[in-house]
């Protein structure tokens, strides 16, 4: 970002960039309208109601951009001076609505301004999160804290509708290319307010977008696949989860270590469910040592250690939203333990006593014979064990061949 000397300089720079009307200039203007950029900290830009007190049309090239810039200065004032995230969130929504009404809806055969729009949406999410924290910490405030995220989602969805209906634009200038970025924005909001079901039509639209998919930015594709993978993991669709997360991991630039780490947080449990355990060095390289003990315990079939590891690192797993997923690894741990028992017994008919003794050995003392049958019955029903239970003889009869199929083959069934 080039240095901004004063407010006139700030407006001149935006004015000059508007003249070019190219994707690159859109990218640069986006930085001047970002809450994260260096300019946002400059006190001379923290002006409330700029448009009403000064002469307008400082951005003479583009009156609407001029109005948006004025509103942006108002947001900067609300954030840095008034410290009022609730009002800044509502002003940011006004910006998005204005952008939709005056730019997205009215300017045909143009899309150079989309980078600006992406930035505005990202900042709206950030402000909604801040406003939500303010409201939930204030007993007198709006008790429905999610309403900030919901109002943000509503504004973005309205823009989404405008963009997807832009079907007659010249090739390369359609606003439909904004679909994926907006889907990602909505993905992030709906993850926050736990309304992932609302994403179904958006995902379907991406699935059916045809050649347009190739026009999306790689950064958006990586983000989309990451979110899609996360959603699939919670829906229990391991194959889709693996596909999305592996794509995201492979295409995420090597230098983006923090993003790669975020992807791995979800990819590791998926791979574990499919029977692929991460190496200690990989976990260490990406500062994911919290997984080390869980991985070792699942491999060993040691339920007691799995429980302890989940307890010890519970806070981290809950924060990442994967505690629930990791709890399900208990099933695989049972499977690994019972596989070891069957190898030790070396017969196809294995007394249930042997499994119970093994469970006691790994610290599980509260499982009686009836519950043991229930656990094994579940493994058989999930096809993780091939065989049947002979209740009268209190035995598990396993298949002579491949009694414990690989987990990846089971999940793909």
């Amino acid at each position: 970002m080039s240095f901004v000397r004063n407010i006139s300089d700030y407006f001149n720079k935006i004015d000059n960039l508007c003249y070019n009307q190219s994707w690159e200039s859109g990218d640069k203007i986006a930085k001047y309208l970002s809450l994260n950029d260096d300019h946002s900290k400059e006190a001379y830009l923290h002006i409330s109601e700029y448009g009403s007190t000064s002469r307008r049309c400082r951005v003479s090239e583009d009156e609407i951009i001029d109005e948006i810039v004025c509103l942006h200065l108002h947001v900067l004032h609300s954030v840095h001076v008034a410290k009022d995230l609730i009002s800044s969130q509502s002003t940011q929504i006004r910006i998005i609505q204005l952008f939709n009404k005056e730019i997205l809806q009215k300017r045909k055969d143009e899309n150079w301004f989309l980078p600006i729009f992406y930035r505005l949406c990202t900042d709206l999410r950030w402000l909604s999160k801040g406003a939500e924290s303010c409201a939930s910490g204030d007993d007198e405030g709006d008790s429905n804290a999610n309403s900030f995220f919901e109002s943000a989602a509503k504004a973005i969805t309205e823009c989404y509708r405008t963009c997807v209906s832009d079907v007659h634009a010249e090739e390369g200038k359609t606003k439909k290319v904004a679909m994926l970025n907006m889907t990602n924005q909505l993905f992030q909001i709906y993850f926050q307010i736990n309304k992932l079901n609302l994403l179904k039509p958006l995902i379907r639209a991406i699935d059916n977008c045809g050649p347009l998919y190739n026009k999306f930015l790689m950064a958006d594709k990586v983000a989309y696949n990451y979110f899609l993978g996360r959603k699939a993991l919670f829906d229990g669709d391991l194959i889709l989860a693996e596909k999305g997360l592996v794509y995201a991991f492979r295409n995420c630039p090597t230098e983006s270590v923090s993003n790669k780490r975020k992807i791995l947080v979800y990819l590791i449990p998926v791979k574990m469910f499919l029977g692929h355990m991460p190496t200690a060095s990989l976990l260490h390289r990406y500062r994911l040592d919290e997984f080390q003990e869980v991985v070792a315990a699942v491999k060993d079939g040691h339920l007691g250690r799995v429980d302890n590891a989940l307890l010890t690192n519970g806070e981290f797993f809950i924060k990442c939203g994967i505690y629930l997923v990791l709890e399900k690894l208990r099933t695989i741990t049972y499977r690994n333990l019972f596989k070891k028992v069957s190898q030790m017994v070396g017969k196809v008919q294995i007394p249930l006593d042997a499994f119970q003794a093994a469970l006691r050995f790994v610290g599980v003392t509260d499982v009686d014979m009836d519950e043991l049958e229930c656990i094994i019955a579940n493994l058989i029903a999930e096809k993780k064990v091939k065989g049947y239970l002979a209740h009268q003889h209190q035995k598990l009869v396993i298949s002579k061949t491949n009694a414990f199929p690989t987990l990846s083959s089971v999940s793909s069934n």
Partner: protein
Amino acid sequence: MATCNTMCSLSEIRFRSKNMLIDKLEATASSRDGPRSKFIADPNKMVKEYSRSAADTHKCNKPELLRPFPVLMQTVDYLLNLFNGHKDRQQRVTSSNFSSTFLFVSDRLRAVRQDMIMQNLNSTQTITLMEKMLPFYLETDGVCKMATCFGYNSKLHDFQLEECFGRWYEELNASSDVTPHPLISSAFFFRQLHRKPTLLQDLYTFRGKLSEEVFSLTKRVISSYNSNNYYRFFKLFKDLDPLLQYSLSDSVSYIRQSAMRIIYTAFKTPVSKLPSHLISDWLGFPTDTIFFVDFLQLYNVIPDNQGNVHISAIKLIEILENDQISRQF
């Protein structure tokens, strides 16, 4: 400012008396055995009825029609006493007496919520009122799903339960100093168990508001359900408070269906059989096997003379959502 200091305002008593809109439960002892048109209002029994207010909110919003918090509390107590007066409720769900009391209480509680919203009561008062009336909705939801109750409409009832829980949860999140009722807290999670796979994550987020004991019990029930561990689920279920058992009504039906599929797959050989009392016990049916035998019939199975169930004879089916047999406990 609410100024109505009785359960029903004078103007409403007059209006309903004039228009013959007195409920049997509001009529004087001498008139209530006659036809409705002859009911005479007993002012001590009259309770403000629910009326849609969308078109004329200003009419309902008059201070003299709104009951302040202490009167609302007294009204809820009165209504719950009426309902709790029905002994052996679970057995008498099908009676018209139960049905009319249920409809009356349900409608009047709705009016209590309407007054509560109109005067914008604070978080603590809202939570107190919700925690008082929620047990009624939870219990009736459970019992009316196990036997046919004439006045019960599952959609409307579900809507009201969601509304109560929604307000309760919202106000709890907005206030840091209120400790929620342990049974209501667990019931809140149990109600969603069958339809929200990420419930455990929500429970952890809510953990700060729960005692360790409540958190641990709720977590164990959720974990056993999520892992299809029907044996542990029903072992825990048997020791739960009846209110929590009612809140798990839908989940009971779903886990029994999953269990039948699992048992069929894991125990199936051409000759395998399991004692029916054993499966009944695994699936948490009452010791009296009548309900379990009915349940087995849904799967086209009748136990043999020795009381064994032939696993290969089970015909797996999808049980209807409003089925009563699969919910019995």
